[in-house]
């Protein structure tokens, strides 16, 4: 199993958020998690990425034959996990290009691969940015600083395409995007999809799933997955909302 979440319970500040959650993702699969506000979707994304604010009460997560809890945040990223943030953090003064260069080389180092030099990286970045309709001038700026909501999300996908993860978690990447930006972002995701990588897409709306076709859709309510199936569930939610699952 590529990613196996077994009986996961998590709390933060005395509030139980995830309750005996189970989820399995195989290599090459696209899974979508849909759920109402406050159901724990972003908590799941953050726990997978290793955010340290949460207390794991129970359960285990295996990722590529590793016990995920044995890996710290950066080790998870270096092992091929990528979280596209719902609210990407603005970091003034940290320039995008050297930051991404350093990020890709930290992953290559862990994989015992040769580090990518400045020139090759610049070429790679330029080409990936062009695919996503990102202006080259934007790459001279600081990480997410002064970006519009759409630019931030596009920049998350640019990072994803550079780092080429094995498992990408997209936390409400569609929020704040107009229809054109949504198309560019989802095109970028679809280009990255191969039989060797997997996606976990968190969203409220079916719209995103019109562009990225999921193999499985899960409904998450009150910290647990209450229903799993195919794309028809997304259509059902679009029509009737989450009420019937609660």
């Amino acid at each position, binding site marked *: 199993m590529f990613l196996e979440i077994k009986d996961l319970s998590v709390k933060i500040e005395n509030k139980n958020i995830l309750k005996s959650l189970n989820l399995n993702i195989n290599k090459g699969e696209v899974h979508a998690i849909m759920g109402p506000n406050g159901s724990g979707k972003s908590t799941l994304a953050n726990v997978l990425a290793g955010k340290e604010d949460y207390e794991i009460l129970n359960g285990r997560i295996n990722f590529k034959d590793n016990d995920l809890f044995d890996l*710290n945040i950066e080790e998870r990223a270096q092992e091929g996990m990528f979280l596209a*943030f719902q609210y990407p953090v603005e970091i003034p003064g940290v320039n995008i290009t050297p930051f991404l260069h350093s990020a890709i080389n930290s992953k290559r180092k862990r994989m015992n691969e040769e580090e990518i030099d400045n020139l090759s990286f610049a070429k790679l970045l330029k080409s990936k940015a062009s695919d996503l309709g990102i202006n080259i001038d934007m790459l001279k700026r600081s990480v997410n600083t002064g970006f519009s909501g759409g630019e931030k999300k596009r920049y998350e996908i640019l990072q994803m395409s550079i780092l080429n993860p094995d498992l990408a978690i997209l936390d409400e990447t569609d929020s704040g995007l107009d229809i054109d930006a949504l198309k560019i972002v989802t095109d970028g995701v679809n280009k990255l999809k191969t039989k060797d990588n997997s996606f976990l897409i968190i969203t409220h709306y079916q719209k995103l799933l019109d562009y990225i076709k999921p193999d499985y859709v899960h409904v998450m309510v009150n910290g647990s997955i209450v229903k799993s199936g195919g794309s028809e569930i997304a259509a059902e939610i679009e029509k009737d909302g989450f009420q019937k699952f609660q």
Partner: protein
Amino acid sequence: MNIEDNYLKNKKNIFFSENKDIQTHREKLINIFKDDRFDKKNNESLKNINLKNFIDFKYKYLIPEETSVINNNQENCYSIVSVNGQCSSFKDDKIEITKIIDEDYNDFSKNDTIEKNDHFVNLNSLFLNSGFKIVIKKNNNIKIKISNIITDDDLTIFQKNSYICEEGSSLNLIEEYENKNNSSSNILNVIKLEKNSQLNHFLIQDNSPNHNLIITTHSSCKKGSTYTQKVYNFSEGYVRNFHYSELIEANSEADLQGIFFLKDNNTSNNKTFVKHLAEDCKSNQVYKGILNDRSKATYFSNTHVDQVAQKTEGYQLSKGILLSDNASYFSKPELKIYADDVKCSHGSTIGPIDENAIFYLRSRGMSKIAATKILISSFINEELSSIDNEQMSEIIQKKLIRYLSKVK
């Protein structure tokens, strides 16, 4: 030994002891110390320090054997080595360097802007043993680099310097303080900028733990002149940077910046006091600190806008990153505005490093320590990238790397 005994014992080695007016002034200062009523709560010069350690000292001064001024006329660049607070006299058609004289002392002591209850300034006047005066002649554009050297352990340097930028002149002044011996320097700089002159003043401070450095600067700007001060404090010993600035004629400007990097038990005290006394003047103050371990810092900022100082622009900003729960940074920005057509603001942000930013960077594969270091660098990136002197920029980058290498 009490202050009076200390003074009387060393009087013969102290500048201008024979001058009766100066002697009278010093007697008044001694009486202030005799009163021994130090208001630790409200006196900003006493925060975070034990004044007793500075009053109860053993006076020691050595007249330097060798000082130098080397000029390179092609680049209009002068290198000065100041030894134990003194430097050689020098004169050409662009600058004149002389020793300070009695009249200069009066100029310092009659200054009303510098607080009378600043005990370090009073100690400086009382035990004055060194100093120099530099005049930049009209319409000249020059660079000066001053290396401040103290030759022996246990020396107590009390130094007054005077800088005068004549009309239309421009001075880029770099001062390096890198003392490794067990000594102390108490320096008062008085800077006068005449009409349309400019002074860019860089101070790099990188002293060892047993060297105390106390710098008080007073600048006054006439019409159309600009004083810029940038202080980079990497010292492991105590440093005090106080700056008093007066914008006395229209369209003058003071731009004050201080960045300090503290660790272990070190302390840095900072103060700026800017008086807007004429129309259309600007002041900008940015003080940033990175504090690790049990280090402490203070920043008192006061902008006073006189009622005649219409169209003033005055900005104050202080920011601090606390890398340890035991580090502390006390910031107190104040504005006193008596004019009604002004643009003024002040702000202060102090806290630990942004955990969300750390998580974001780590989630891209960067280690926690690398993420912390990159965020520290980014915190001061704006100030570092504004340095237009390549040599300075390189020096500061190297010192920053050294500081970051100790961050765990």
